[in-house]
């Protein structure tokens, strides 16, 4: 039997490994392509100011997409984030109105998100409710609470909060970084680290690869599943804070449909909704793509309401089709 010994090493393996990064690379390539086309078409499109604005305007969405990536990697989905953004914004505005100091309000606002996330996580894991429904219920809950707290938009005039939100560093020609952008990028960095370098992060991927298998592998599936929603909720809380900083107000109708933007960003960034594959960095690129589409629309400057929608739809389409083309056909 000696002659039969040995599993032969397989050929061309390193190539396969790269494939995991292909979707993200695809997104990056198409993003650059769009920037180039935009730059050729509009004056001042590729400028420090416009690119800074891209980050400025979408800081909250970056954070949401980061949280959403965790959830989607486990094969779940979180529809509550848009409503949580509204809720935490309102909580911020109302508590400032009540005279609470920023040092109390800011943690409180983030905590609101975590608690709702925990609620979703418990429903999903302990009670086996489907993530879509559990988070939809949380969305209704958060929206309902919004109206209860304040149906009208409430301005935030707290001085330290205003100071925090208007802090920014200018450099070069129009380049600008605000506190919101810093917070978003720090969140992103932490998320990358957690997903790639901690047991929790790798367990998230393993659950996405197959929950039953993960359980039989002896991984803490229960804790991880609940935590993932807490992460997403917390990110939504932070997102709400950033949005409150962005608009300096809280309003119950904020963020309607924002969850779809976040999901779209994650998916455009190359993460599969079935779970298990994807990267946070991809989600950042996804957000930038959506922001860029919006920027192109405003630069175009002549579109009527309906053409705006059609063009957004078309651009998203062009984007995913190009990305798909770059990735090549996968045999499913």
């Amino acid at each position, binding site marked *: 039997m000696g002659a039969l010994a040995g599993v032969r090493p397989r050929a061309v393996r390193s190539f396969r490994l790269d494939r995991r990064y292909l979707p993200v690379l695809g997104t990056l390539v198409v993003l650059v392509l769009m920037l180039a086309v935009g730059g050729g078409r509009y004056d001042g499109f590729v400028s420090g100011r416009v690119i800074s604005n891209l980050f400025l305007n979408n800081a909250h969405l970056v954070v949401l997409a980061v949280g959403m990536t965790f959830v989607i990697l486990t094969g779940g989905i979180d529809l509550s984030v848009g409503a949580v953004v509204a809720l935490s914004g309102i909580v911020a505005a109302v508590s400032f109105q009540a005279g609470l100091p920023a040092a109390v309000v800011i943690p409180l606002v983030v905590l609101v998100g975590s608690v709702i996330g925990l609620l979703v996580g418990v429903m999903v894991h302990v009670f*086996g409710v*489907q993530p879509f*429904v559990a988070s939809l219920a949380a969305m209704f809950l958060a929206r*309902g609470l919004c109206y209860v707290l304040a149906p009208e938009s409430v301005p935030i005039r707290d001085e330290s909060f205003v100071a925090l939100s208007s802090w920014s560093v200018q450099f070069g020609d129009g380049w600008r970084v605000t506190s919101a952008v810093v917070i978003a990028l720090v969140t992103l960095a932490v998320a990358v680290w957690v997903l790639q370098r901690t047991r929790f992060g790798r367990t998230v991927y393993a659950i996405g690869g197959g929950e039953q298998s993960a359980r039989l592998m002896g991984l803490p599936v229960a804790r991880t599943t609940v935590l993932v929603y807490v992460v997403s909720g917390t990110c939504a809380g932070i997102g709400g804070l950033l949005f409150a900083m962005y608009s300096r107000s809280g309003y119950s109708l904020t963020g309607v449909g924002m969850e779809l933007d976040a999901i779209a960003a994650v998916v455009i960034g190359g993460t599969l*909704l079935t779970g298990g594959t994807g990267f946070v960095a991809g989600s950042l690129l996804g957000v930038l793509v959506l922001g860029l589409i919006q920027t192109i629309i405003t630069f175009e400057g002549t579109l009527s*309401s309906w053409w705006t*929608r059609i063009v957004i*739809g*078309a651009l*998203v389409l062009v984007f995913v089709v190009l990305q798909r083309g770059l990735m090549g056909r996968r045999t499913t």
Partner: protein
Amino acid sequence: MTRVQAIVRHRLFWPVVALVALLVANTIKNPTFVTLRVLDGHLFGAIINLLRQGAPLLLVSLGMTLVIATRGIDLSVGAVVAIAGAVGLASVAGAPDPGSLGAVLTAFVLALAVCVLAGMWNGFLVSVLGIQPIIATLVLMTAGRGIAMLITDGQITTVTSAPYKAIGSGFWLGLPIPVLLAAAVMAAVALLTRRTALGLLVESVGINPEASRIAGVGSRAIVWTVYVVCALFAGLAGLMVSADTMAADANNAGLFIELDAILAVVIGGTSLAGGKFSLSGTLVGVLVITTLTVTVGMMSISPSVTPLFKAVVVIAVCLAQSPAVRERLAARRRRAASTAAAAAEVAA
């Protein structure tokens, strides 16, 4: 297991309980809720109203059930509802005689044809290009309302046309036409999926696409068909919605109907992970959601609390329905029994 236990364990037990509870609450609040009266040979009453309001949602949910069974999702149904209304009313408005049956039938056929196109488009993106359903249909969800507005030129198109209006608020044999239509479609779908092999193949594709492919199932054709069917039903719903107020409101027609439809499907026990689907479950889900909406109005509950109310009902139904809860309870009982036995053994 006793008969009662069997009933309690049924998948649809808790949704039905919720439905009955809502109906009872309404009746207590306003006893006329359950009364039916006949006016000009037509049945009137709150229940009839409820069914009529639920008809478009049922149509959309039926299509959605099939899409979800293949592991997909269709976010564009709301936009398709708007497109159908826009095409239908614009076509009737453009006809020389909007009141003629011919003009209306042409409009219906035209509108449904456009919706079939929309469905083919979704199906193409999903089954041929292999784009994830949520994103593939997001494209039409965004662009679709734009297209509808393009058709109506951003206005709310209004027409008077009795035959058109009938599909939304007409009566036949004393019953509202939308209800009859939705029932007919439901019966057709049930026949088509359970009397042909379509149901089996759809489920098989939804549970394990690769195994189905190797078993020779034409997954691509099936997935494609399902999106077309879903859009077609959404189109029919769109005609009803537009006929209801005889206005094509590109912005608001069918707004968020996709969420309600998905919710209905899931309450009905079909898993979003694809596979086994239940049409009767979807029907119950639709009734629960519609009754919920009606109840909020009936109770004169402040609009502020509406979503909260919805959340509570959804959570309650889902938790009660949750197999995990029951299993846990059963396991606890078992474990208690076995430790007791063990203890007895040790003692002996």
